[in-house]
C-alpha cells in the first residue's frame, strides 16, 4: 500500500508579543501555503500520492488549493491528492491534538509539521510512533531545524517510501515530562516539553511569551544548543548538550545578575533580543530522574510559553525521557540519498567522470 503522509500546518504560530518586544518574524499565511506546496511537490516526486491535512480556518488550505488548481490548469501533475481530516475546527491547540490523533489512527507514515516549538509539542503529544518532519514557521523554533522545506519534503518522501532504511531515516528525540499535583481538590496535570521547561515568577499566563529575564528562576532543557534562540540558548551557552545525547541540562537562574553567587550570561532569548541572565549554577539532568524544583510558585513555561501557573500548595516534578518520539532525520536521509544515488535516473552505481 502506498504510504500516506499527514500534514499539520498551524496558521496562528508566530503571532505573539515577541513581534513587539523583540524583532521576531511574522511568516505570512501565503508564505506558509507556499512552503506546503514545496513540501507536497517533493513528496509527490518520491511517489507519495495521498496526503492528509489538518483542517483550519486560517487560510492556508485555501492558498494551497489555489496553487494546486493553477498547476492542474497548466497540465502539471506535480502534487499528491490532499484530503482534509474530517473534524470540527476550534481554532485552538485542540485542533492539532485531534488532527494528529486522527491521522495516526488513519495510519500515516509520517507527519510534516509547520509551526514553532509549541505546535511541534502538540503533535508530539499525540503522534505515538509516527515520525515528525518539522518545518519552522514559529518564533524561536529551537526544535524544528532551519532548512529549505523542499528538502524536508524530499527526505520525508524517501523515508516513508522505504528507500532509506529506518535506522538511518528516523531519529529518537527527548522530552521532559511535567507533573503537577494540585492536591485532593485540584487533581493532577501532566504536560510535556520538547526543548525546555522554564519556571518563572509570573503567576499569570498573560501574553505567554518569556522575555523578562529578571523573572527567570529555573530552566530544564532536553538539549542545550548555542545555535538556537531562546531558553535552550541559555543552557547551550553554558554547557552544550546535543539532541542525540542522553539527558539534558538543568540551570538555576538568579534575579540579580550582580549577585556575588551568580554569573551574568548574555544570551539571545528571542529573535534580535540579547539579554543579561543571572546564572547561579547548572548541572546535567539525567534521563528518568525526577527533579523537584526549588522555586515553589510561579508559572511553568513549556517550550518558551507560559502555560500553567502553580502555587506553594502544588507539587511539581520534572523528568527527562530519552527516546520519547521519532523524527525524520533529514540530514541523514539526504546524505544516504546522495551516497547511494537514490535520485539518479538509473539504479546502477555510477562514478563521476574525470
Amino acid at each position: 500500500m502506498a504510504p500516506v503522509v499527514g500534514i499539520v500546518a498551524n496558521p496562528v504560530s508566530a503571532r505573539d508579543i515577541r513581534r513587539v518586544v523583540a524583532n521576531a518574524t511574522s511568516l505570512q499565511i501565503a508564505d506558509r501555503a507556499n512552503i506546503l506546496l514545496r513540501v507536497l511537490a517533493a513528496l509527490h516526486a518520491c511517489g507519495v500520492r495521498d496526503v492528509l491535512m489538518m483542517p483550519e480556518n486560517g487560510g492556508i488550505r485555501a492558498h494551497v488549493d489555489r496553487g494546486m488548481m493553477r498547476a492542474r490548469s497548466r497540465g502539471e501533475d506535480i502534487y499528491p491528492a490532499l484530503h482534509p481530516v474530517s473534524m470540527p475546527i476550534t481554532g485552538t491547540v485542540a485542533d492539532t491534538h485531534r488532527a494528529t490523533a486522527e491521522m495516526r489512527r488513519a495510519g500515516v507514515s509520517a507527519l510534516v509539521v509547520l509551526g514553532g516549538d509549541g505546535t511541534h509539542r502538540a503533535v508530539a503529544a499525540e503522534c505515538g510512533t509516527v515520525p515528525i518532519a518539522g518545518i519552522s514557521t514559529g518564533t524561536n523554533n529551537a526544535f524544528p531545524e532551519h532548512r529549505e522545506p523542499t528538502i524536508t519534503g524530499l527526505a520525508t518522501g524517501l523515508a516513508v517510501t522505504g528507500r532509506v532504511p529506518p535506522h538511518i531515516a528516523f531519529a529518537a528525540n527527548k522530552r521532559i515530562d511535567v507533573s503537577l499535583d494540585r492536591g485532593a481538590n485540584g487533581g493532577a496535570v501532566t504536560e510535556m516539553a520538547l526543548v525546555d521547561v522554564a519556571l518563572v515568577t509570573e503567576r499569570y499566563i498573560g501574553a505567554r511569551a518569556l522575555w523578562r529575564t529578571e523573572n527567570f528562576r529555573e530552566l530544564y532543557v532536553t538539549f542545550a544548543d548555542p545555535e538556537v534562540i531562546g531558553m535552550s540558548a541559555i543552557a547551550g551557552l553554558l554547557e552544550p548538550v546535543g539532541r542525540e545525547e542522553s539527558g539534558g541540562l538543568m540551570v538555576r537562574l538568579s534575579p540579580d545578575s550582580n549577585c556575588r553567587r551568580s554569573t551574568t550570561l548574555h544570551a539571545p532569548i528571542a529573535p534580535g533580543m540579547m539579554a543579561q541572565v543571572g546564572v547561579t549554577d547548572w548541572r546535567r539532568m539525567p534521563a528518568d530522574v525526577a527533579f523537584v524544583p526549588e522555586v515553589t510558585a510561579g508559572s511553568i513555561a513549556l517550550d518558551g510559553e507560559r502555560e500553567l501557573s502553580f502555587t506553594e500548595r502544588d507539587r511539581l516534578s520534572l523528568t527527562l525521557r530519552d527516546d520519547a518520539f521519532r523524527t525524520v532525520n533529514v540530514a541523514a536521509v539526504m546524505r544516504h540519498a546522495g551516497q547511494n544515488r537514490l535520485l539518479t535516473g538509473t539504479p546502477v552505481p555510477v562514478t563521476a567522470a574525470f
Partner: protein
Amino acid sequence: MAQNPFPLGKDELLKAYRTMRTIREFEERLHVDFAKGDIPGFVHLYAGEEACATGIMMHLNDNDRIASTHRGHGHCIAKGVDVHAMMAEIYGRSTGACRGKGGSMHIADLSKGMMGANGILGAGAPLICGAALAAKVRGDRGVGITFVGDGASNQGTFLESLNLAAVWNLPVVFVVENNGYAESTAMEWAVSCDSYVDRATGFGMPGVTVDGTDFFAVYEAAGEIIRRARDGGGPALLECNMVRFYGHFEGDAQTYRAKGELEAIRASRDCLTILSERLIEAGVIGRDELQAVDREVNALIEDAVRAAKAAPLPAAEDLLSDVYVTY
C-alpha cells in the same frame, strides 16, 4: 490573603473588574430596554468583548486619544466617559454626552480623549492618525488607539491609515476586534489575506494576536505595544480574538451562527467569568468583594437609566446648536 501573582495591584484589579462589569450591565440593560422600544435609533452591543477595551484602556490616560466604532459603548466606559451621560445620550436626552444629538453611534467626550464612536466603518483609523500626529508634533507622549472590527479592517481607510502611520512613524495602535463576523459574514468568506498580522507585516509594522477573552493577555500585550508607541517606537497592530454575545445589532436574528454556538461561547469564553474565577482562585479578591462591585454597578446602571428617562429631550431651538463649527 494570598500573595498577589498578577501584574496589577488589588485596587487596579478591582478597577478592571468594575469596568468590565459596568460595560456588561450597561449592555445587558440596553438589550432589554431596546426591545421594549424605549431607545431611539440602533444599538450595537459590546457584551462579551469587555476584556479587550478594558485591558487596553488600563494603560491610557486622558491625554491619549481613542477613535471608536459603531460598537463603542465599551470603549467609552473603559476610557472613563460618564455612564450617566452615556445613558442619557443613548436615550436621546439633552443631558447626554453630546446633548442627545449623537446617540449610541456618536458618543464622544474629548475631555477623556474619547474622539467618538463612529457609524462609518473604518472611519476611526484616519482620524486617529491625525490625533497621533498632533501628539507627535506636540511631543506630549500621547498615543492614539483606533478600533476596527474584522469587517472594517477591509476598508480602504483602514489600510491607508496603516500605511500613513508606518510612513510617519506615528504613535498609533490599530486594534482589530475580531469577533468572527462582519455583521453576518464570517471572516473566512471576506478577508483575503486571512491574518491581520499579515496585513501589519505588509505595511512594515509588527502585529500581535492575543486571546481577547483573556484580560491579562490583552493587558500585557497592549502594555508593551502602547509603551513602544509612547517611546517613539511607532505603530503596531493588535488583534484580539473575541466573541460577541448579541447580534450585530439589536434585533439581529443571527441566522448565520451555528446551532448552539452562542450557548457554547457564553459557557466557555465569557471574559468576565474567566477574570473573576482567576481572581478568586488566586485568593487575591474574594467572591464577596466582587459581588459588592456587582451591586454597586447594578445601582449605577439603574440610576443612569432612571436619570436618562427623567431628563428632557433636546428642545426644538437647539436643533442647530453644537452641530456646525465656526472657524
